[in-house]
């Protein structure tokens, strides 16, 4: 446990004390498996993450297992921990992480990777997997970024590819049995080879071509399979879903309970990794959802419930479900929040229905400014739909609107960039065109652009990303084009965007870059106040990792990618077809309109088998 005199000195000491409502406390002497769930960011961010809540309760439902949480200490705390030689500890019991059986790290964004190394170091666990001994926990990593595990390969004992509920029971049972038999840590890790969905980097090796691209991935163990398939939950109604959530001490980004409606996304936007790696869409039924909503609200006392899924309004039985949910919520004086909505009429009507009193701001993501560009990325929404959606929203009393776009999408032209400004202008005109008595307040329109980062397992995985200079020029161009009062423009940092692209499509050599940057003092890279581009550039120089090669280089269709050995269901052939269609500005219908034979039906469930 952290002593009082240290907690008295840090900002927000409640980040480090555990013991929140709905958290677990177990007798360490009475458990067999001590599991640390690690989120490599600060408490408030970590506690807002749904996957953490699910896995935490999933593992703790086992009597033989105690899952504790461990997050990245904020910089003030880290400094004091190092000065006082304190090790990183589990929030529930204060036990040093080094004493745990497992540390399971969730990989949500690339810019958190240096924090992972820092957390291992603060735990006194060797950063490199090869240097760990019997005294060290087994280090697992999972989550969306694990679909390209290679940039972290030297640091992780094994990767878990897919949804946690599928294999963890078997993994823990196996661990327990082996432990009883007195087997070594190495033997236990090796035994994980029996599971499809588990990737143990040390049993594989990459060979390279002269041009630096990968020639082949070689298995170094007779049981080390190639390819490795992700694992997915088959029956979303039957799978465990926690009936409570830990209530953070400190106000998290949102004070609310989260209900997951389905996994996957029908739409197939070509830039979106989540849309591919989580295929196929698997929904819970309305009754399951209503039941879970009631339990969650009763067990947390929250006054808001958020419907989390990739594209909430695509839920099959939305009409009936939303009606029933509204009743449940009205009874309990609870608000419903709907993130990730499309901007169509249907969605706006839904918003109106659920948010009768409080008009918060509306967030929509058209992603691109012109129809041509939206066709390229397969964002199937027309300008007319966007404007109609906005009009409905304005007439419904909303006046604050946030619009998200991406810059640097494949085939983007000047016209597409100006298209963003034009669309914003059209929306502003639309607002002012409505009679004052039929709208409320003054328009506050925020246009926000991010830098497009090509991701593995998307139709754009071959794309050469824009350079920092190009991004910055585009920011200027757009800034100059948006001049109207009431429209604000902001953009994400180009330097972070390019580094993210380096890591996202990195191979094992990029691990050197991450390690070196960490050694130079980089942590909390996703926080702009800490991101130190000079140190990263220095690390790149020292390790010979060439940003251009990883981020900006256009790949050819026959190149072998570091992540090709993972089978996510969706085939590379499908991605190539999609990439070619993008060039031709041709769109692809969503799964419910027409199956495009992406390959995800190999999982034998979900939307592919709806009648």
């Amino acid at each position, binding site marked *: *446990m952290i002593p009082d*005199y240290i907690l008295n000195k840090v900002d927000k000491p*409640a980040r480090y*004390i555990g*013991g929140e409502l709905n958290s677990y406390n177990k007798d360490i002497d009475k458990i067999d498996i001590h599991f640390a769930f690690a989120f490599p960011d600060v408490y408030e961010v970590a506690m807002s993450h749904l996957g953490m809540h699910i896995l935490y309760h999933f593992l703790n439902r086992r009597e033989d297992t105690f899952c504790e949480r461990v997050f990245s200490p904020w910089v003030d705390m880290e400094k004091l921990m190092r000065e006082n030689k304190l090790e990183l500890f589990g929030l529930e019991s204060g036990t040093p992480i080094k004493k745990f059986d497992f540390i399971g790290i969730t990989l949500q964004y690339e810019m958190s990777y240096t924090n992972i190394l820092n957390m291992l170091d603060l735990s006194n666990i060797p950063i490199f997997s090869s240097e760990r001994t019997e005294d060290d926990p087994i280090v697992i990593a999972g989550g969306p970024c694990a679909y390209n595990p290679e940039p972290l390969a030297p640091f992780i004992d094994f990767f878990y590819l897919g949804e946690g509920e599928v294999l963890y029971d078997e993994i823990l049972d196996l661990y327990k049995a082996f432990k009883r038999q007195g087997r070594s840590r190495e033997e236990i890790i090796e035994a994980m080879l029996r599971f499809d969905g588990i990737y143990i980097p040390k049993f594989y090796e990459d060979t390279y071509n002269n041009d630096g691209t990968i020639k082949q991935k070689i298995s170094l163990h007779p049981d080390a399979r190639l390819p490795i398939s992700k694992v997915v939950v088959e029956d979303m109604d039957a799978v465990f879903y926690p009936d409570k959530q830990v*209530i953070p001490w400190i106000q998290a980004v949102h004070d609310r309970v989260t209900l997951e409606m389905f996994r996957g996304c029908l739409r197939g936007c070509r830039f979106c990794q989540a849309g591919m790696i989580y295929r196929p869409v698997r929904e819970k039924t309305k009754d399951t959802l209503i039941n879970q909503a009631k339990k969650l609200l009763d067990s947390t*006392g*929250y006054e808001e419930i958020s419907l989390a899924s990739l594209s909430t309004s695509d839920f099959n039985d939305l009409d009936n479900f939303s009606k029933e949910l509204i009743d449940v919520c009205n009874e309990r004086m609870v608000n419903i929040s709907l993130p990730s909505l499309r901007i169509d009429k249907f969605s706006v009507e839904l918003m109106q229905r659920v948010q009768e009193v409080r008009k918060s701001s509306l967030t929509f993501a058209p992603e691109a400014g012109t129809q041509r560009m939206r066709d390229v990325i397969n964002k199937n929404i027309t300008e007319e739909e966007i404007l109609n959606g906005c009009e409905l929203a304005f007439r419904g009393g909303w006046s604050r609107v946030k619009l998200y776009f991406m810059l640097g999408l494949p085939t983007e032209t000047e016209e597409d960039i100006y298209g963003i400004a034009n669309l914003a202008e059209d929306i502003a005109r639309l607002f002012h065109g409505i009679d004052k008595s039929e709208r409320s307040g003054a328009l506050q329109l925020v246009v926000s652009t991010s830098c497009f980062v090509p991701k593995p397992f998307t139709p754009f995985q071959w794309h050469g990303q824009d350079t920092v200079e190009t991004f910055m020029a585009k920011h200027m161009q757009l800034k100059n084009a948006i001049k109207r009062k009431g429209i604000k423009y902001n953009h994400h940092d180009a330097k972070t965007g390019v580094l993210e692209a380096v890591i996202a499509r990195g191979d094992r050599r990029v691990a050197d870059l991450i390690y070196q940057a960490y050694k130079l003092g980089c942590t909390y890279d996703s926080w702009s106040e800490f991101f130190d581009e000079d140190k990263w550039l220095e690390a790149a120089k020292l390790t010979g990792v060439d940003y251009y090669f990883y981020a900006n280089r256009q790949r050819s269709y026959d190149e072998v990618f570091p992540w090709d050995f993972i089978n996510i269901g969706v085939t590379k052939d499908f991605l190539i077809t999609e990439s070619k269609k993008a060039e031709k500005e041709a769109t692809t219908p969503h799964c419910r309109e027409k199956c495009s034979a992406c390959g995800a039906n190999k999982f034998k469930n979900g939307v592919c088998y709806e009648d």
Partner: protein
Amino acid sequence: MRIRGQFTKEGNVKFVGHLDTMRMFQRAIKMAKIPVAYSEGFNPHSKIYFAMPLSVGVSSVGEYIEIRTKEDIEPEVVQNKLNAVLPRGVKLKTCFEVQPTAPTLMSQVDVADYIIKFEQDYSDKIEQTLCKEEIPISKRNKKKKWVDVDIKPLIINYEISDAQLKVKLYAGSKQNLNVDLLLKAIFGEDEIICNIERIDLYTNMDNKFISLSLSDKI
């Protein structure tokens, strides 16, 4: 119906700030299915009130909460139901009903007791300061300006023993001395390792200090 409770805030929960503690109680009261009353308006919130904020890092065995309920409920039921869900370190010691006409909890706070435990024996140093006729110290007033104040009249009594100081201080909205300022008066800017605990809050009835745990009887 107005129900008051005296509760503890001991152990690590003392690092949870006042606002976060209030949020925690809001959740806990709903989890415990206490029929709490709500304010009217667009953004209704549950009617829960506290006597006096406690600084982060200070523990207490004498905190107070008032819950207004929309239905009648036995205070003891409230106590049991809440204790079943409250986190480690927070515990309702008693619960009782107060009359609809009773003054607010906050307005009743006049005096607070603290025990401060030090790592070493500072008896002499403490005595030297506290025995003075006047104890001047500069502090920021409500307008954020630095002013000199004499805190001696705000100290009702004190008791020094070994490495421990027990003090009774004026507290609340009329006149208030917080412990940090008292320690600053004694130790200046030196960093002192100590444990501060609030023991109880009192209301002043003709210079008789009555614990708020008896506020149903006043």
